[in-house]
Structure formats: structure tokens, C-alpha cells
């Protein structure tokens, strides 16, 4: 017999799942559409609804039916230096993740756990930078990076006597360094890690201190493993952000061979002189896939790992 309670529960559950499903579709539909577009023979079905969400292929007579073609994906690798862009993206993202984690951890630990003069002021100053829109820092950062390059040039001249200007490539414009430098010391990472370190019970640190650990050993052997979920979250967050970042790399990386995917794909495949939209869509899908895969594997690190430490 169906009583009221069961009915109620069923209604609530279906409402929950329906809204989750709607939300899921809402957030994924651009990607689904791009995927369908990129896997179709051409764009003639893509702008129809709902057929546009399913890939179509045309036979010799020009009749469209549901099917998949990988020709556009192949074209991506032929038309643009996709592999180079991909490698650039991987290098830039790796540098950003490692840099952000290292700097955030080393900056957050003293802010969270050591007592020194001006600690609160420094923390507030770091947080205040979050209130500036990212665009506001583009010009000063650009000038700074340019000066870095000039400095490298000067240094090379002074130290080696050569005026080739090759050192500029390491830290000046058009370097991987320039793409990640402004973001690695982000307030968000420091804030996140500070919160994580503050959540670690004082007793755990005292225990390590009594056990004979130095300050760096406490950080490395106790604090880092305990805050691993936060570090993983910060790493994943930085990875996704850097991978998808467009504006800053497009400003400092003008050389084509240094550009990451987001910049390269945009420059090569959009605009009035671009090729077919199918190539663009295929390239977009190819750009997103690595992040999706990475995300799927690292999701579980978002769960907290503090159980069993105290109490």
C-alpha cells in the first residue's frame, strides 16, 4: 500500500533529481553542443534544436543521419600547431600549480602558526589584493614583466658581455615565467592554506615539537600530510584556472610557439579569416577533455582527511 510518507518521499526525491539533472544539462549544454558540432560532417544541423545536440553525418546524396566523424578532430592537428599549444599549456599549468602551492604553503604557515610583528597587517594587505579586479593589474604586471626582460638582458650583457638578448626569453615577455608569475602568489591560495593550517590542532604541532621536529620538519612531515586535501583542492583549482586562462597569456605571450591552448585556438580558429566552425568546435572539445579527465580522478581529494587526529 502506498502511504503518504512514501509518496512524499518519492516526490521530494524526484524533484531533487529533476533539478539536479536540469542544472547538469544547463551547465554542460555548451560543451555537448560543441562536441556534437565537432563530430558532425558540417554545421547544417547544428543550429536546429534539438537535433543540434546529436552529431550528424551526410552521405553522398547529402542526406543527414545520426553518426560520428573524426575528420575535424584530425583537421585540428593539421591546421594549427595543436600539439605545441598543448605542450605549452601543460608546461604553464604545471609551473603555475607547483608555484602556487609552494608559495601559498610557505606564506600561509607563518601567517597561521607563528607570532611576529605585523602579522595581521601583512595578512590584510594580501587579502586586500583580492578586491582589485584582475584586469586592473594587467598594465602594471605587463610593465613589470617587460622590465624583467630588460633586466635579464642587462644581466647577460654585464655577466657574459654578449648582447644576444637570449636571457630575456627566460623571464621577459614571451616566456613561460611571464605567463605564471603574477598568479602564483595569489591571495586566494594563501588564504585557503592559512585556513587549513589554522584548523590543525595545536596539540599536534606541540607533539611534533616535543618529538624533536624542527619548524620545517613540522611543516613538511606533519602539516603538509594533514592538510593534503586542502593542497589538492588548491592544486586542482589552480590547474583548471590556469588551463582556461585566456586574457593574461594572450597579453604577454605574443609569440605563437609559446602560446597555450586557450590563446592559440582562439587566435587561429576564430575571426573573419578562420576556417570552418567544425574545426573550432573540435579544438574546443580537445582543449577541455584533459581537464575533465584530471578532475574525474582527483575529485576525491576534496574530502577532508582530519579524522583520527584528535579526539
Amino acid at each position, binding site marked *: 500500500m502506498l502511504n503518504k510518507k512514501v509518496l512524499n518521499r518519492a516526490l521530494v526525491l524526484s524533484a531533487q533529481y529533476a533539478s539536479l539533472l536540469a542544472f547538469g544539462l544547463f551547465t554542460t549544454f555548451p560543451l555537448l553542443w560543441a562536441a556534437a558540432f565537432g563530430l558532425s560532417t558540417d554545421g547544417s544541423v547544428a543550429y536546429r534544436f534539438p537535433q543540434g545536440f546529436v552529431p550528424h553525418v551526410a552521405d553522398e546524396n547529402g542526406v543527414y543521419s545520426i553518426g560520428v566523424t573524426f575528420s575535424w578532430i584530425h583537421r585540428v592537428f593539421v591546421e594549427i600547431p595543436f600539439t605545441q599549444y598543448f605542450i605549452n599549456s601543460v608546461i604553464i599549468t604545471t609551473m603555475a600549480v607547483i608555484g602556487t602551492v609552494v608559495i601559498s604553503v610557505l606564506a600561509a604557515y607563518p601567517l597561521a602558526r607563528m607570532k611576529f610583528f605585523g602579522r595581521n597587517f601583512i595578512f590584510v594587505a594580501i587579502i586586500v589584493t583580492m578586491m582589485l579586479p584582475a584586469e586592473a593589474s594587467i598594465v602594471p604586471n605587463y610593465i613589470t614583466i617587460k622590465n624583467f626582460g630588460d633586466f635579464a638582458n642587462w644581466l647577460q650583457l654585464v655577466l657574459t658581455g654578449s648582447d644576444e638578448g637570449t636571457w630575456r626569453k627566460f623571464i621577459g615577455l614571451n616566456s613561460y615565467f611571464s605567463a605564471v608569475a603574477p598568479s602564483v602568489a595569489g591571495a586566494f591560495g594563501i588564504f585557503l592554506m592559512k585556513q587549513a593550517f589554522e584548523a590543525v590542532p595545536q596539540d599536534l604541532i606541540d607533539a611534533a615539537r*616535543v618529538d624533536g621536529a624542527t619548524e620545517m620538519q613540522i611543516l613538511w612531515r606533519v602539516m603538509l600530510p594533514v592538510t593534503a586535501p586542502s593542497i589538492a583542492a588548491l592544486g586542482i583549482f589552480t590547474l583548471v584556472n590556469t588551463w582556461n586562462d585566456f586574457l593574461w597569456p594572450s597579453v604577454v605571450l605574443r609569440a605563437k610557439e609559446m602560446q597555450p591552448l586557450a590563446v592559440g585556438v582562439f587566435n587561429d580558429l576564430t575571426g573573419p579569416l578562420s576556417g570552418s566552425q567544425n574545426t573550432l568546435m573540435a579544438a574546443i572539445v580537445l582543449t577541455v577533455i584533459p581537464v575533465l579527465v584530471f578532475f574525474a580522478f582527483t575529485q576525491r581529494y576534496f574530502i577532508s582527511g582530519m579524522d583520527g587526529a584528535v579526539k
Partner: protein
Amino acid sequence: MAGLTLKNIKKNYTKDVCVIKGVDLEIKDGEFVVFVGPSGCGKSTMMRMIAGLEEITSGELYIGDTLSNDIHASKRGIAMVFQSYALYPHMSVYDNMAFALKLAGTPKAEIDQRVKKAAEILQMTHLLERKPKALSGGQRQRVAIGRAIVRNPKVFLFDEPLSNLDAALRLNMRVELSKLHQELKTTMLYVTHDQVEAMTLADRIVVFNAGIVQQVGSPLEMYENPSNLFVASFLGSPKMNLFESQLVGLEQGSAVVRLPKGITVRASVDAGRAKVGDKVTIGIRPEHIELCAEGDAEGIPARVDLTEHLGDIVLAYIEIPGINEIICMKLPANMTGLKYGDAIRVKFPESQCMLFDAEGLAFKRLKK
């Protein structure tokens, strides 16, 4: 192994906030000393200073014969067990216990041998591979103690180690700690706010209040001869009954005091430094109040307010007309007949009464 010497130790957090106000204490090698006192009395701070986790504002701390004020916590030869256990959650039990030895660069074989030996003492060899989160509260506490044992410390520090355990487990661990002390014969310092733990574990108790040592002594000595009102009311459960009264007479070997409504009570103390008319406080422990026969002229009339049957004893809360305090008395378990409203007569035996002056300091008791 080593003793501890504390010389005029003080701790200020800021200029005006002084939490330890000059502590002098000598702890002998191999002694089990318990710091006891209410929350915020400075006992944990004292222990953290000994451990090297808090700076000592002034005074001298000797561990053995070494002045240790500025020696790093890890070099003091102490091991500490925390109330929250403070196990490293990402390490197995074995690694938790081996951590300090690894940091000290002890050879692997020796680490292995020492960890296994400690695990044997604590009967937890089968737990060595587990992570802390897979252990119960009691097991975690054992690991925390094991972590201390493997280091062969000169002094063990226990900071309220049993507070997070349930009552039955606490009792077990208490016994085990006592046994451990007998086995290791190492100096142990133990902080607790539980006076039962203090009474049962300690060779000597140090009672703290407001950053000052109130009294130091063996548990029984403290129980029998508290030096002041604070110690008298802190030790013992249920606590000592205290009545404000007036000194009305001094005799050879006893003092006569008057409670409100003209009730007079004698206490066999040497009240020589007081004079008749002084305000005093008389105290008597619940187990020392005697029930007397109805016709007894010495008996003070009282009325039963409430009885609690604890199985082994009966606690009766009584009221004496004219005295506002509720008085607690401990009676044998067979006294089950008392009930609310019963009129009884009670007696305060002269030899069991304690007397404190207006400042709260005890008069010396005289044994007859």
C-alpha cells in the same frame, strides 16, 4: 631518569596578566606527582613550561641537574601525552611511535625493537599497522602513551590524558598508568582537574589555584590536613561541609566555636594564634558526621532533605535549622530507612572537625 626542580617560576602572558605567580617545587627522581586544580588555575601552563612549549617568564627550571629554561622541547628528555592524544593522522600506529626516534636518527633495528617493546607493554602489538582513525578512544590513548614510552624519557608529562575517555575506560587506564609507573619507575608529572585521579595516582599532589601552589603533600596527608580552605574543599567527594562561625572559647587541645542559633561545636585544633570572638570556618567531611540516638543531648537536631543511594553508601543531604548550608553526610549502605522530612540528630566529632581562620588558613589539628 631525573628529578625536577622549579625555582620561583613565573609566567606572564602580557605585562599585567600573570598566570603563574612564583612556583617553587622539588620533584624527586621516580616520583609520580599530580598537579590538580580547577580550570584556569595554571596547572597546564606549568606543565607546558616544563615541556618547553611555553616560555618561562622568570625563574629557573632544572631537569636533573641541568638548567633547562632555554633548552628546546625535544632536547629536554621529556615525553608528553596530550589530552587530545595528538596522534599524527596520516601515520600508522607504528610510525606514530617511531616518529621521534626517526627524527633523532636512531638506527632502524633499534627503532623496531623499542616500538615493539613499548607495544608489548601496552598490549597493542596487533594494532601497529592501523591508522589512528581506525582505533577507539582507549586505543588511541595507549598509542599516545606508547609514543612517550619509546623515547625512554627522563620525565613523563601527562596533560589530562584520561579526560576524553568514558568512565569505565578511565578507571582501567588509571590502574594501567599506576602499573606503568611501577614498571618504568620514571618520574611522572600528571595534570588533572579530577581530584579522584589525583588521590589515586599520586605519590604527591600539588594543588594549584590562581597560579599559586596551595599545598604539596601525599594524598592522605592533604586529605587529613589541608592547609587552607581551598584545598579542604577541593579534595574529597562530596566536598567538605564548611560553616562560618565564631570562636567562643579556647581550651587546652580544643577550640569551641558557635554556629548560628547558638549551636556549639568543638574542634581539637591548636587555635592559639586566634582570639575569642574571631570569625572562623569550621569544616567536617561528610563521612565524619555521625548520626546519633534520638535522646542524645549532644546531638544537633536536623532534617533530611534528600537521600541518594549509591549502592555502597548512602548520601544524605540534611538541613540544620538556622544554618543555610545544605549539609552532606555519608552513611553506610544499610541506612536505607531515611527519607525526606525525617527529623534526626547528628554529631560533629571533635577529633574530626577542622578549623580555618578568617584568611582561610587551617589551624593545626591535634591528634588525641
